[in-house]
């Protein structure tokens, strides 16, 4: 069986609903838009990482560079270049919706809607059922875990869009070669947005194989697809080569003069060497995030997803001639689950690329189970399932739609603007970076407000700007729980200043608390 839709086949022969697929897709898009747009500026808290990508997009536009600090290849830059391009289109650019991160969050809403569209098309191709596609998109849009991270300005969300585009073009191409080549380009963009997309490569390659094996275009399809993403991905190391930053400093230096520069290879080696602990170790990063962040937000997509992945795997293997789509759905989840559990360093939002595929397995399997019921009951059963999912998810995500968590961060920002001299040396989290640096006609800018990461690790800032002495720091702006980050990363320089500082302003609500501190001289 091929995954391909040639456009003439009845695509919808197994839907549980007698509603045209176009209407279902439109409703899915609407749900995707409303769930993500509503309250997006208030919830969740602005995360430091959102600020990092926003300040790097700022640097692309304002400085023609990839980062306001020394870019050290921590991530490939396509994500924030896209964010920069988007921001250029906005009438007041970073200031269009108040706080700078908001402009990125609007982009994320659109990215989610596009992702829903692509996911819908992919699921119809894999399952031949528009009702399955609707269910998948419902889970994908309403999952409180998904909602939480998909609203944030994260590279992972952009990567998911490119990934889904790559998969979509492999499943809906009417047997043409060009969409397969563009799929390769899209996958390349996914890679240069976030490198861990690479873990999907084997499954997507397998999808391509299912699509073209035995056809006369098989050779060109494979070679073209691999070439396309290889070419796009190669621009990243090419950039490093052109900057003279591919190899570690001194690797090709025979002059004996000391050299200092960042290096792509060094960073990759460092990233690969960072361990988050084995999945068999309950104290590993994986279980830390599982227990502390993921499970409490949405146990359904995790537990249900795990079961559904096994179910889809079973269906795919048992009926492998007819139901390759279920096998593919399961493999997509498994390949990224392998990445998450293989014991490397990670952050809470690394779960993001897994969510559309967990949703895919859940939706496809539940839809297939409903097909077991008598024909006349199927529509009712399907509607019941939809309503239960929706009700459950809405009740679990009341905070997402009602809380205003960013209020404190807004007040904190206003306090800084009103009370701190613009030439002060300020240590900040990245969430406020662009708001403190972007020129505007209302408030002062703070050119010496620097990210705590750079104050701690970048000699240009710690030594160059602060003279290597924490006493030169005037203020520390604390985002929620930032002290934990200082401690986890053992930021000695910043901690020294912190320990010798006092609170001059504090804003709190619930368990969110942000501060502005002044360093004692």
């Amino acid at each position: 069986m091929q995954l391909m839709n040639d456009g003439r086949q009845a695509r919808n022969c197994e839907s549980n609903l007698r509603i045209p697929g176009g209407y279902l897709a439109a409703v899915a898009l609407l749900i995707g838009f409303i769930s993500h747009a509503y309250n997006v500026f208030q919830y969740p808290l602005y995360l430091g990482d959102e600020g990092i990508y926003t300040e790097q997009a700022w640097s692309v536009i304002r400085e023609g560079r990839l980062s306001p600090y020394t870019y050290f290849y921590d991530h490939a830059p396509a994500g924030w270049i896209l964010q920069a391009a988007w921001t250029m289109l906005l009438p007041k650019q970073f200031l269009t919706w108040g706080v700078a991160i908001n402009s990125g969050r609007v982009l994320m809403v659109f990215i989610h809607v596009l992702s829903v569209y692509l996911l819908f098309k992919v699921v119809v191709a894999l399952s031949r059922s528009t009702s399955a596609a609707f269910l998948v998109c419902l889970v994908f849009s309403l999952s409180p875990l998904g909602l939480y991270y998909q609203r944030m300005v994260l590279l992972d969300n952009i990567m998911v869009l490119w990934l889904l585009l790559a998969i979509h073009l492999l499943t809906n191409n009417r047997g043409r070669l060009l969409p397969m080549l563009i799929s390769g380009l899209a996958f390349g963009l996914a890679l240069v947005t976030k490198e861990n997309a690479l873990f999907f490569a084997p499954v997507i390659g397998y999808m391509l194989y299912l699509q073209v094996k035995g056809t006369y275009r098989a050779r060109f399809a494979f070679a073209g697809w691999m070439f396309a993403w290889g070419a796009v991905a190669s621009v990243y190391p090419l950039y490093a080569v052109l900057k003279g930053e591919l190899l570690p400093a001194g690797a090709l230096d025979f002059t004996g003069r000391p050299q200092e520069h960042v290096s792509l290879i060094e960073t990759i080696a460092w990233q690969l060497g960072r361990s988050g602990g084995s999945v068999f170790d309950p104290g590993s990063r994986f279980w830390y995030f599982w227990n502390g962040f993921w499970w409490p937000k949405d146990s359904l997509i995790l537990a249900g997803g795990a079961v559904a992945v096994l179910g889809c795997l079973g269906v795919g293997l048992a009926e492998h001639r007819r139901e390759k789509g279920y096998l593919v759905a399961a493999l997509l989840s498994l390949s990224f689950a392998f990445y998450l559990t293989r014991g490397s360093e990670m952050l809470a939002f690394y779960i993001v690329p897994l969510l559309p595929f967990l949703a895919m397995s859940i939706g496809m399997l539940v839809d297939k189970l409903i097909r077991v019921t008598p024909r006349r009951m199927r529509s009712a059963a399907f509607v019941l399932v939809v309503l239960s999912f929706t009700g459950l998810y809405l009740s679990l995500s009341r905070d997402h739609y009602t809380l205003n968590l960013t209020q404190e961060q807004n007040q904190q920002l206003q306090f800084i603007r009103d009370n701190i001299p613009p030439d002060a040396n300020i240590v900040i989290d990245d969430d406020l970076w662009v708001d403190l640096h972007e020129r505007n006609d209302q408030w002062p800018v703070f050119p010496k407000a620097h990210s705590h990461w750079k104050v701690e690790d970048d000699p240009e800032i710690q030594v160059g700007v602060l003279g290597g002495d924490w006493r030169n720091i005037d203020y520390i702006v604390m985002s929620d729980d930032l002290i934990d980050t200082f401690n986890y990363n053992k930021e000695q320089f910043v901690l020294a200043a912190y320990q010798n500082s006092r609170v001059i302003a504090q804003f709190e609500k619930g368990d969110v608390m942000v501060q502005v501190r002044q360093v004692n001289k």
Partner: protein
Amino acid sequence: MTYVILGALVLSVFLSVQAAYTIYIMLYTWDQPEAYEKAKAPSTFRDPELTFTVLLPARHEEEVIQDTIQRVVQANYPRQYIETLVICEIGDRGTIDKAQERIDELRRQGVDNVRLEVFDDKPINKPHGLNHGLKKSSNQVVTIFDAEDEIHPDIFNIVNTVMLVEEVKVVQCGVQLMNYDSSWYSTLNVLEYFFWFKSRLHYHANLGMIPLGGNTVFFTRDLIEKLGGWDERNLTEDADVGIRISTSGEKVRVVYDDRYVTKEETPPTLGHFMRQRTRWSQGFLQTLKKGDWMKLPLLQQRILAFYTLGFPIAQALLALYLPVSIWMMFAVKVPVPVAIALLTPAYLVFAHYVVSVVGLYEFTDAHNLQPSLKTPISMLITYFPYQWVLAYSSFRAALREVRGVNNWEKTAHVGAHRPGREA
């Protein structure tokens, strides 16, 4: 310096677009399932109905002419439906003698549908020979074979069927160089033919703007006579006649079926190869200058015609641009994004190489050949020299055209594609 960089950027965009387009039309057949289906020969043949005139213009072809005659005679088509004219210039005694020898032999065997036609007027070139043959013949469908061609015995059945079923007046069948491993330039040359006939011509036919090939092309007599035959002052009379047919709005059917291609050989030496290329490039420029293509009804047809006929020059620019861009990358300090933009054509050239390697396997697979692993590597090594040879030939052609030099530089044939012979 800023202007140099800006100029390079503009050139880089231009070359990237044209290179991407070229790659696309190379892959057209693989991209379009319908085109692929259409390119195939009919699976069952109609009964013979149409009568054929085979024009076999030959000059200094004493080595291969007898085999070629034999091939035509052995075609699976009623002999009385085919007349074959071997056309020679009166001074070419060698070819005339060899041809006459075989014709006499055939007569003795009772085969009497082959004859020799000799002309003694100027110019001594292929289109003149064709026009001469056209006047001396009478069958319904006129076709051309070159002296070195190895035609498939069913070729007339295919054309008979296609012309009757699809009611087309022009059929171009596939021509394929075969000796892909006989010299350093032959692999890439063979693949050029492969992509040209298997893919690109279908794109042209679909758009209604097609430069025809020089042989295994079939016209109804009324059409070619209405067009006034071939242009004797044009070095690529085949491309020219294709443009004129396109202008008249006549549909051209292209058949490329690996089983039925006419087999040919690459030119035997580099010198011959360059002269052949020079002739083609110059012929294209002449056709461009002549301006018939401007009468094409659609803008996209005119653009495609301009692009195709001027292509040798664009390709030459690309071949020269690459070393310059790589030099600029290291020697001139340009901003990194600019350097990356300047390298885009290099990516596309590499893509072209990859497509060629895949094409090699498609080609050898279709003809049951086994390429050695060395072939893709030697293609990598010879890729740029090959492009530079083409570039040199294009510039030489342009220079000749400007100077008004217009003699026909003939390509020699030794029969390297025929089994049992050494090149």
